[in-house]
């Protein structure tokens, strides 16, 4: 089945230790997104790629970076995680920027910072 796969499912990292989250998709969708979701809150957009065009939200911390080496893969790098970065990180894809067919989300990576 075509899908969006995130690894790892759970990630524990030390305060200040760089961490990378990965996302892959077999849907061949043009657009990929990274959302951060804290407990009982709405998903908050961090970055998105339309093909190779990169967009980051104005309020995305400088601590967060992203890479999309090819259509299928996308990475979220957190250079120096703080306690406030503990959250669920969701990768999503859509065929078009407006998401006419809806967004497909991966299962998420739950990040714990100790």
């Amino acid at each position: 089945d075509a899908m969006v796969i995130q690894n790892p499912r759970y990630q524990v990292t030390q305060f200040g230790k760089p961490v990378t989250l990965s996302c892959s998709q077999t849907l061949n969708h043009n657009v990929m997104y990274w959302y951060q979701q804290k407990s009982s809150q709405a998903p908050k957009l961090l970055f998105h790629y339309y093909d190779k065009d990169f967009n980051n939200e104005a309020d995305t911390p400088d601590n967060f970076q992203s890479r999309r080496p090819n259509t299928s893969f996308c990475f979220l790098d957190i250079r120096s995680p703080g306690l406030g970065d503990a959250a669920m990180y969701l990768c999503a894809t859509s065929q078009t920027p407006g998401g006419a067919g809806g967004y497909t989300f991966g299962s998420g990576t739950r990040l714990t910072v100790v």
Partner: protein
Amino acid sequence: QQPVQSPQAVILREGEDAVINCSSSKALYSVHWYRQKHGEAPVFLMILLKGGEQKGHDKISASFNEKKQQSSLYLTASQLSYSGTYFCGTPQSLSGGSNYKLTFGKGTLLTVNP
């Protein structure tokens, strides 16, 4: 700009109906609806496009009134499996071009009890 959802939470008994509302202060061209179960990723339910259409997904349907800039999600004869948090999402244009991002409301927690 984040869409506004109401109510924040609703508790039902199995078989009862519920309505969840989503409104925006900006012009809407489409509205997405997603359901997220605890600890899982959001799942796309449906998208409503401008034109006042109503769509259905099993016993879940939705309407979209672009003039009033609002959408409503109707859950009929609720089942235990309907429990979760429902998010509406509204695409917003980036830099006036054809690139969009989806902004989610704060969510409505629906609990269906036996």
